[in-house]
């Protein structure tokens, strides 16, 4: 398994917060030990996707540049697993 670093960005803009985005800031508590050191987690000011109807619904997160609308912690974890080649 390669030692890729996956970057996770969670939007904490107001629209995402109102639709439950604050939960995503607890992502760190859900990262399995085997992934430690291979992830970069970051909370971000409004990413702007809420203004574009074609992007889907808030809350938004990005995993290695890939957008996740209506993001949940399990959904983000699934995507990280995919990126790390560890499903």
């Amino acid at each position, binding site marked *: 398994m390669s030692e890729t670093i996956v970057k996770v960005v969670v939007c904490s803009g107001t629209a995402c917060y109102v*639709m439950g985005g604050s939960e995503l*800031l607890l992502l760190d508590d859900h990262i399995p030990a085997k992934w430690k050191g291979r992830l970069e987690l970051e909370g971000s000011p409004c990413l702007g996707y809420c203004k574009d109807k074609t992007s889907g619904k808030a809350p938004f997160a990005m995993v290695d540049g890939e957008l996740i609308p209506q993001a949940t912690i399990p959904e983000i974890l699934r995507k990280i697993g995919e990126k790390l080649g560890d499903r």
Partner: protein
Amino acid sequence: MHYNNNAALVKRELLISLIKLMLEDRLEEGIDKIPYEMTRDPDYQPIRCCVHHDREILKSRLLARLGFSVEQYVDDGTPLSVYAREALARERISAPILTVLDDACNACVKTQFMVTNACQGCLARPCMMNCPKKAVTIVDGHAVIDNAKCINCGICQQVCPYHAIIKIPVPCEEACPVGAISKDANGKERIDYEKCIFCGNCMRECPFGAMMDKSQIIDVLAAKKRGKKLAALFAPAVAGQFKASLGKLVSALEKAGFDAVYEVARGADITAEKEAHEFAEQMEQGEPFMTTSCCPAYVETVRKHLPELKKRVSDTKTPMHYTAEIAANEKPDHLRVFIGPCLAKRKEGIDDPLVDYVLSVEEIGALFVAMGIDVAEMEEKNLDQEALAGGRSFAWSGGVSTAVQAYLPKHIPFKPETIDGLTKESFRVLKSWSEGKNTGNLLEVMACMGGCVAGPSTITNPKVATMQLRKIAEASKGVEATAEASASSKTPASTPAPTVPVGVA
């Protein structure tokens, strides 16, 4: 139930849609289409039997969002626009502040224990052996519970080595700490408002979102349209609800249409000081203990269920009241709109002549979204007068007693204890204190576990919100120095304003 769940999100989406229409002056024209727009997606998966039932429920949700009670609502074909017109024209909001949506209520079966097919029909048969009512028998090698005999004690569930027995609860009834919810003849839940303390637990816990608070956002926006000036009084907990500084929150509230913004933490500073004086007086008179009075769900609990505790509840008014007093003096022509995480505050707002409206964090968040306001992108603005760390700490469990302590003279013994969440269990603790079995001398009572940061009308995860709020409080002017000053001075408990210096940003 988790704070952010689909039921909560649907309610917020409705609010955003309503507010958008209101801001575009198209409420009457557009409101009837909302249930269709929300279910228009070709991949829409019905929640209940079909999309038509879902739309019918969305209609009654919209009625609650317009501020109507819906217990007696029968859809007779009257369009929502007719109700919208009525909401826009009304001058006063009506009690009760909660309502039950019959269409949404699942009429959950009465709480029961059920044996699943994980039952192995074992030799030990602890379920059968330990049942105090002999309600468990073995039929074809499996345990069966006779519901006519079962008293829901739960022993069979606890003793089954295979975890084969499950409890199917009625979540709203289970969440209610005072037994105010029960079924009517049709199995639908009813709230007994003579018993209800407006803690909001049922609203938070119902998996079908059948309990809703009656919104006041339409009333506030309509008043603004009529040319009224608005003062926002935001509760200490609100500062933890958005990922932004206090100064940006103030700008956001101004941009959303408020002509003046007051921090209710300032009123909390006054409450803390007065409560400290009152407490010192009570202790010097040899009284056994005093309880805080800032949580309206707790005060309602005492009034309706523990009248014997009434003489122990502090007579000091709430932070909302003192802040409304300041606003009324400074801006007498402004309508005073409290913004908070709390459901019971809506009740307190109706009872307090100084408060005109009470909005929830959900409503204010939806207003921001509808107006495209991102709090973090706002300009940093200084509050005219800043609250102290003590007042800003009122929103988490333990914060009130710490703030009170800071104003206490050193010679007064201080043994604070906290009721962190009103539940059936903590209710018993309250009862035992009222019977003289108190284990401390100041009891801080928070109806919500964790404090106001975990209120039923919040949008942010309580853990995240508490971290944010602590950061803000820690950067505020402390009360340590003033506590000593307060201890040596002989300020009477009835001083109209806090005698503490006010911090500058």
